[in-house]
């Protein structure tokens, strides 16, 4: 029967432990308390009933009543045994992993005791300590010791909260009070209960082990309670820091971080009103506060509105504790109406500038110490990381925006360039254009004049990027407004210089080359304003054509036109004409345009090609072979004249 009982209890305990299997040490106190409550409640009922029967017994003693009393006792004892048996087993199952060595200790001890008892019996064999089956008692003993050693009471007591500890303290006391009389119940071999040695023995041994457990719980809570406030504070601080490290990454919700920081300051500084003030251009730009009641609210208001207090706060450049304001301030000044006495002030830095202050105040003088200050500093440091992260995030968004704008600019700039290549009899045109950044300062245009004439323009604005692109757009605007189809190339260049000289930044200039091809007259005219020369390939000879000409917008028009000289040449079958910008020759000549020019010439001379497209490929291959990273805009126009 008892095997069945124990089995049921073990199964019950197992399921019970399953429910709250992974109870942490800090949560175990709550669990222990919960079970203790049920036990104490049952124990109290039992004692209360016992008391009633005792009372009745004084006035009216009867055999039947005593029997009923004993039978009720039996029921209570059994159910009580059931309860704490299952609880203790539950605890064992819960902490079995951690304290397996303690369980083993209990097991060894019971074996030792059993052997000791047997030996004593054999040696003295007068009276057995246990009546009935020894095996039964061995098992009972084993369980008792297992319970006793089942869990180490020490680690979870200090880790439990103060309230739990307090409750455990009182319940342990109560349980001790209940268990001692239980142990004292005598065996008068009367009735079923008292005649059953097993129940009595079992209950008493279990009650004894439970009593020891509660004595220990009482003892440890008694020791631990005085320090619980400190431990609780430290545990709170550790949890707070863990919480902080979680919120610190909340870059897109800086407001939430501010709120969390004042909230934490308020809670960790024993509910002292906390204030976070932020500045922009040294003016107050934002306030966050945390307080509980109206008095605290008044303190915050006072700190914000009272000039003297604000002056003290604003002057703080490193974490500071102001222990007593009335001592610090002249009593005639505001001392009389001071509504708080001590405060902690921590400055918030961003980019080496103070962007705010965290202020925690209390009515009691000398309330804050250095430890409080260092905790607040750690809050502020976290806040600073958040502010920095937020700043970076905003910067990234801004950059993204700028990047998009740049893409639009690039698209616009592409619209300035000719769309497609015009089809002209006897001419084959190839173009390569690659800006270094999203936008660039290189520029080309192809203007068809009548059926047989075509004007090629290639230009380069000094500098790169956005500014160059703006000037390029300006140049395109002037060309569009010019009478390109009727005026001469010379006049066009002079007009461009006239329009730009003295109107743009003096540090900026443009270079430009123009090539006018007449397929009917079979000739071409080349004009160069500070731009790179023209390369012509005719038959086996490759020529670099350089003419005189100052860059656009460098000098006034008279001087510009004085030096602008054109070159006229004839077109033969399969004449190649190459216009390009400095990006190409600098890439070929490793930043030296003269060398690049020679490399280009040599490449052309040493290669075999059938048309402009092939020549373009050869040149680009050479550029790539040089391994130079394109750090400048590169433009190349190849025009081939051929006769059918």
């Amino acid at each position, binding site marked *: 029967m008892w095997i069945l009982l124990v089995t049921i209890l073990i199964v019950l305990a197992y399921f019970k432990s399953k429910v709250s299997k992974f109870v942490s040490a800090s949560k175990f106190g709550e669990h222990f308390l919960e079970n203790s409550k049920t036990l104490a409640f049952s124990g109290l009922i039992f004692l209360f009933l016992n008391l009633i029967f005792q009372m009745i017994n004084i006035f009216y003693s009867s055999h039947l009543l005593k029997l009923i009393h004993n039978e009720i006792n039996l029921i209570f004892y059994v159910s009580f045994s059931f309860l704490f048996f299952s609880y203790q087993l539950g605890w064992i199952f819960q902490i079995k992993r951690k304290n397996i060595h303690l369980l083993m200790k209990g097991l060894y001890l019971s074996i030792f005791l059993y052997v000791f008892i047997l030996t004593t019996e054999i040696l003295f064999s007068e009276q057995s300590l246990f009546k009935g089956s020894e095996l039964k008692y061995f098992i009972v003993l084993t369980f008792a010791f297992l319970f006793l050693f089942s869990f180490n009471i020490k680690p979870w007591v200090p880790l439990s909260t103060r309230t739990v500890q307090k409750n455990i303290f009182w319940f342990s006391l109560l349980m001790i009070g209940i268990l001692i009389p239980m142990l004292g119940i005598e065996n008068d071999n009367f009735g079923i209960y008292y005649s059953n040695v097993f129940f009595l023995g079992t209950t008493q041994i279990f009650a004894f082990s439970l009593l020891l457990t509660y004595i220990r719980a009482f003892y440890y809570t008694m020791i631990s309670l005085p320090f619980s406030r400190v431990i609780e504070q430290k545990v709170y601080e550790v949890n707070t820091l863990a919480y902080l490290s979680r919120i610190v990454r909340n870059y897109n919700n800086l407001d939430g971080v501010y709120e969390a920081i004042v909230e934490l300051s308020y809670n960790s500084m024993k509910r002292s009103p906390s204030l976070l003030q932020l500045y922009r251009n040294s003016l107050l730009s934002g306030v966050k506060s945390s307080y509980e009641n109206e008095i605290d609210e008044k303190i915050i208001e006072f700190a914000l509105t009272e000039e003297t207090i604000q002056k003290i706060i604003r002057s703080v450049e490193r974490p500071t504790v102001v222990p007593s304001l009335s001592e610090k301030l002249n009593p005639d000044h505001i001392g009389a109406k001071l509504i708080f006495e001590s405060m902690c002030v921590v400055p918030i830095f961003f980019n080496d500038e103070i962007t705010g202050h965290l202020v925690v105040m209390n009515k009691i003088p000398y309330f804050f110490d250095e430890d409080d200050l260092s905790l607040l500093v750690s809050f502020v440091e976290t806040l600073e990381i958040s502010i920095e992260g937020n700043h970076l995030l905003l910067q990234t968004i801004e950059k993204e925006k700028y990047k998009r704008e740049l893409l639009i600019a690039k698209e616009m700039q592409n619209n300035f360039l000719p769309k497609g290549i015009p089809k002209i009899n006897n001419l084959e045109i190839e173009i390569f254009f690659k800006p270094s950044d999203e936008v660039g300062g290189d520029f080309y245009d192809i203007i068809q004049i009548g059926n047989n004439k075509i004007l090629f323009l290639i230009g*380069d604005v*000094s*500098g*790169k990027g956005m500014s160059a692109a703006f000037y390029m757009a300006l140049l395109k605007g002037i060309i569009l407004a010019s009478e390109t189809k009727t005026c001469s190339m010379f006049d066009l260049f002079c007009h461009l210089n006239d329009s730009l000289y003295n109107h743009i*930044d*003096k*540090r*900026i*200039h443009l*270079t430009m080359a123009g090539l006018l091809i007449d397929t009917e007259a079979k000739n071409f005219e080349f004009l160069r*304003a*500070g*731009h*790179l020369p023209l390369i012509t390939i005719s038959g086996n000879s490759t020529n670099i054509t350089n003419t*005189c*000409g*100052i*860059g656009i917008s*460098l*000098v*006034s028009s*008279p*001087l510009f036109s004085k*030096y602008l000289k054109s070159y006229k040449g004839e077109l033969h079958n399969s004449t190649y004409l190459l216009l390009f910008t400095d990006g190409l020759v600098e890439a070929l000549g490793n*930043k*030296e*345009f*003269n060398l690049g020019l020679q490399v280009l010439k040599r490449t052309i001379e040493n290669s075999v090609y059938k048309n402009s497209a092939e020549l373009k490929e050869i040149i680009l291959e050479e550029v790539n072979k040089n391994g130079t990273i394109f750090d400048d805009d590169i433009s190349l126009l190849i025009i081939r004249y051929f006769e059918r």
Partner: protein
Amino acid sequence: MDEKFKVRKQTINDVEIIYIYGILDAHTAPLLENSIKETINNGIVRIVVNCKELEYISSAGLGVFMAFVEEIRYKNGDIKFSEMKDKIFSIFELLGFHLIFDILPNDEKALDYFKLNLLKKNE
């Protein structure tokens, strides 16, 4: 300070000789610009730029001289260049800077030009 470009100055009478070293591009141009600005602020408008140690000049570098030449010439001064390397000269020549500025073989020659009051004009 950017080590790829350096400026050293020497004043002889009313002429400032500016020795420039290294690479003059968009990154280093402000350095030279400030240096020339300082010279002009000191009341000196006759400048010789010694290019003996100049290794590279970009269009932004050339822009520095254009930024000041008009003002300097208006104040009866000038910018002259001396001891220019061939590869630098070819850049000047390409842009037509040799038509705008006097480019002389050495500082003495440049000082002589100033002594004889040989100044180029914008117009």
